[in-house]
C-alpha cells in the first residue's frame, strides 16, 4: 500500500519522459525499436549490398555504358575488354516498362469498372462477396499464374494475337509494334498476366476512393435527373482522379517487380530490344532469375547485380510515389 506507484494523474506530457518506467515497458520499447531498426537496416543494407556487388562491373565498364547499350551478350565478355559493354541493360528496362505498361493499360480501366460496380451499382448483398473474390486474386501464387499463363492463356491468345497482327500489323508506322509472328510467349502475354495480378491492388484502392465520395453530391445529381452513369461521371470520378492515379502507380510498382510469372511467359530472349509486343523478350527481374545460377562469364554476376540495383531503385521510387499520391488523394476527398 505504501509502495511508490505512478498514478495516471502524474503522467502529464512534460513529466512523461522523466516518469519512472517499469522493466516490462523498457523491454517493450527496446523490442519495437529493434524491429523498426531491423526493417530500416534491411532496406539500406540491401541497397548497399547490391551496389557493392555491382561495383566491379560498374568500375570496369563505366556506369553509363550499361544504360546506353541494349545488347546483352555475356558470351562476348572478356576479362580485360571494356568497350563495347557486352552487358547493356536497356532492353530489360524496356521489357519491364513495356510489360508493365500493357498490364496497366488493361488493368486500370477494368479495375475502375469493377470498383464502380462494387461501390455503386451492385446490390448490397453482392458487395462483400465480390470484393472478397477480387482480393482473392491477389492470394494466387505467382508461379500458379505463370503455369496458367502457359497452359490456358497462351492457346487462347493465338487467335487474338493473329487477328491483331493481320490488322494492326499492316498499318504503316505502328505496324512494327504489332508485327508477327506470335509464338505464345511474348511481351504481350506477360503484360496480360501482369494485368490480372495487379487487378486486386488497383481495385481495392479504387474501391476505397470511390466509397469516400460524399453521398449528398451523388444524391443531388440523381435528384437532378441524371442517369446512374452520368451521376458517377459527375460526382464520383472527377474527385477520384488522383486516387485512381495513385492506385495505378501502386499497381505499377507490383508489376515491375513480378518475377516468376513473367519469366515463364515472356520467352527469355536477351540479345537486344524487339519492337513488336508479340516478340520474345526479358525483364529486369526475369533475366536475373534466369541467369544468376549460371553467371560464370567475366563480370556476368556483377552485371546482374547492376540490373538488380536498378530494379530496386525503380521499384522504391514507383512505390513511394504511388503511396504519396494515394495519401494525398485520400486527404483531398475526406
Amino acid at each position, binding site marked *: 500500500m505504501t509502495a511508490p506507484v505512478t498514478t495516471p494523474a502524474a503522467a502529464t506530457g512534460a513529466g512523461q519522459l522523466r516518469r519512472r518506467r517499469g522493466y516490462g515497458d523498457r523491454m517493450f520499447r527496446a523490442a519495437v525499436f529493434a524491429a523498426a531498426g531491423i526493417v530500416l537496416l534491411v532496406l539500406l543494407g540491401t541497397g548497399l549490398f547490391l551496389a557493392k556487388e555491382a561495383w566491379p562491373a560498374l568500375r570496369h565498364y563505366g556506369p553509363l555504358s550499361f544504360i546506353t547499350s541494349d545488347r546483352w551478350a555475356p558470351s562476348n565478355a572478356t576479362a580485360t575488354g571494356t568497350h563495347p559493354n557486352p552487358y547493356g541493360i536497356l532492353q530489360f528496362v524496356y521489357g519491364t516498362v513495356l510489360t508493365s505498361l500493357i498490364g496497366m493499360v488493361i488493368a486500370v480501366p477494368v479495375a475502375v469498372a469493377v470498383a464502380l460496380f462494387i461501390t455503386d451499382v451492385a446490390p448490397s448483398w453482392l458487395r462483400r462477396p465480390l470484393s472478397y473474390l477480387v482480393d482473392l486474386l491477389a492470394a494466387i501464387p505467382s508461379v500458379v499464374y505463370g503455369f496458367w499463363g*502457359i497452359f490456358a492463356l497462351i492457346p487462347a491468345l493465338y487467335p487474338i494475337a493473329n487477328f491483331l497482327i493481320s490488322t494492326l500489323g499492316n498499318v504503316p508506322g505502328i505496324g512494327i509494334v504489332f508485327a508477327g509472328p506470335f*509464338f505464345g510467349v511474348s511481351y504481350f502475354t506477360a503484360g496480360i498476366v501482369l494485368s490480372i495480378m495487379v487487378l486486386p491492388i488497383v481495385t481495392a484502392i479504387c474501391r476505397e476512393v470511390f466509397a469516400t465520395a460524399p453521398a449528398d453530391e451523388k444524391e443531388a445529381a440523381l435528384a437532378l435527373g441524371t442517369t446512374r452513369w452520368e451521376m458517377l461521371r459527375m460526382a464520383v470520378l472527377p474527385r477520384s482522379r488522383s486516387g485512381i492515379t495513385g492506385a495505378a502507380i501502386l499497381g505499377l510498382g507490383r508489376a515491375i517487380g513480378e518475377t516468376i510469372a513473367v519469366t515463364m511467359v515472356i520467352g*527469355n*530472349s536477351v540479345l537486344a530490344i524487339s519492337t513488336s509486343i508479340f516478340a*520474345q523478350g526479358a525483364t529486369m527481374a526475369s533475366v536475373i532469375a534466369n541467369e544468376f545460377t549460371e553467371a560464370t562469364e567475366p563480370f556476368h554476376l556483377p552485371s546482374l547485380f547492376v540490373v538488380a540495383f536498378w530494379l530496386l531503385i525503380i521499384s522504391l521510387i514507383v512505390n513511394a510515389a504511388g503511396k504519396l499520391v494515394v495519401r494525398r488523394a485520400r486527404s483531398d476527398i475526406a
Partner: protein
Amino acid sequence: MYSTWAAAYDKATGVAVAYASIGSGGGIAQIQAGTVNFGQSDTGMTPTDLAAAKDGPILQIPLMLGAVVPAYNLPGIASGLKFTGNVLGEIYAGKIKTWNDSALKSLNPGVALPSEPIAVVHRSDGSGTTGIWTDYLTKESPTWVSALGGASKSAAQTVAWPVGIGGKGNEGVSAAVSQTKNSLGYVTADYAIAQHITYGQVQNKSGNFIEPCVPSLIPAVDGVTFPPSLNTSLTDGSNPDVYPITGTTYALIYQHQTSKATAASLINFFAWVLTQGQDMTAKLTYAPLGGALQKLSFAQLKKITVNGQALAK
C-alpha cells in the same frame, strides 16, 4: 542418366549419390568452387575453366556417349524429318524463317511442310548440350559462324542467340517445344524420347541421314585421337553410320583428394559406372563408351591421389 545410376548403385552397394541437374555451366562452377565432390558437364572444361579450379587439377572422365537431337513440334508430321548442319545453322541464325523454305523442302520431298514461321527454341542457361550443338553448327554452317561473329564466339556453352525463345534446362526447351506449335529446339535424346517429342535425322559427313539411336552413337569415337585431358569434340564423325551431333558427358573430379573415404567412394562409384553402369545406358538412349575410351577413362581414375598417394589399383 545419373539418377538411374545413383538409384541402381544405391541398390547394389547401399551408397547414396545425390545429383542435381543444373546445367553444365553450374556443374563446372560448383566443382571449381569445391562445393561438390564431383561435377558433370557435356562439354569439357576450357583451360581457363581448369585454371579457375580452387583445389588443383581436375580430371575429366568420359562416362557415356549422348546425342543432341533436333526436336520439333509440327502437327501431323512424324519423327524423321531430315536436316543438314548448314540448314540447322541457318535456322538458328534466323536466315531460314519458315518451315516451307526451299532448303527444308528439298531435303524432305513429299512432306507437307507448313508455311508457318519456325519458332526457334534454345537454352537460356549455360549448357554442355548447347556446347555440343553449337560445336556441330560451327563445323557445318558458315552462316551460323558469321551470324555469331566468328568461330571463337559461335561454339560455347553460352552463346548470343540471334533469334529464338529461351528455355531453362533440357526440361525448359522440351516444354517450350511441346507447347509451341511449329517450333524447333535441341535437347538430349533421352528428353525427346521421354517427353514424346518428334525429332529429326541429321546428315553426317559421309552424306547419310542418320537417326539418333544407340548404334549410331557408338562409332563417334572412331578415329578420334584423345588428348591427355580426354577433352575433345566428338561431333561430325567420319564413320558413314555415325550420328553427327554426339558428345560425351564428363565427370569432373579433383585429382588430389583430401579425404580417403571420399576418394574411395568416388573411385568405386565411377568404376561401377564405367563397368556395370554402361549396360544401363541404352535404355535412356545413351551409348556405352566402347573399349578404347573405357580404358582411357579408367586410366584417369587411377590418377586420383589422396595426400600424394595414388589410391586405385
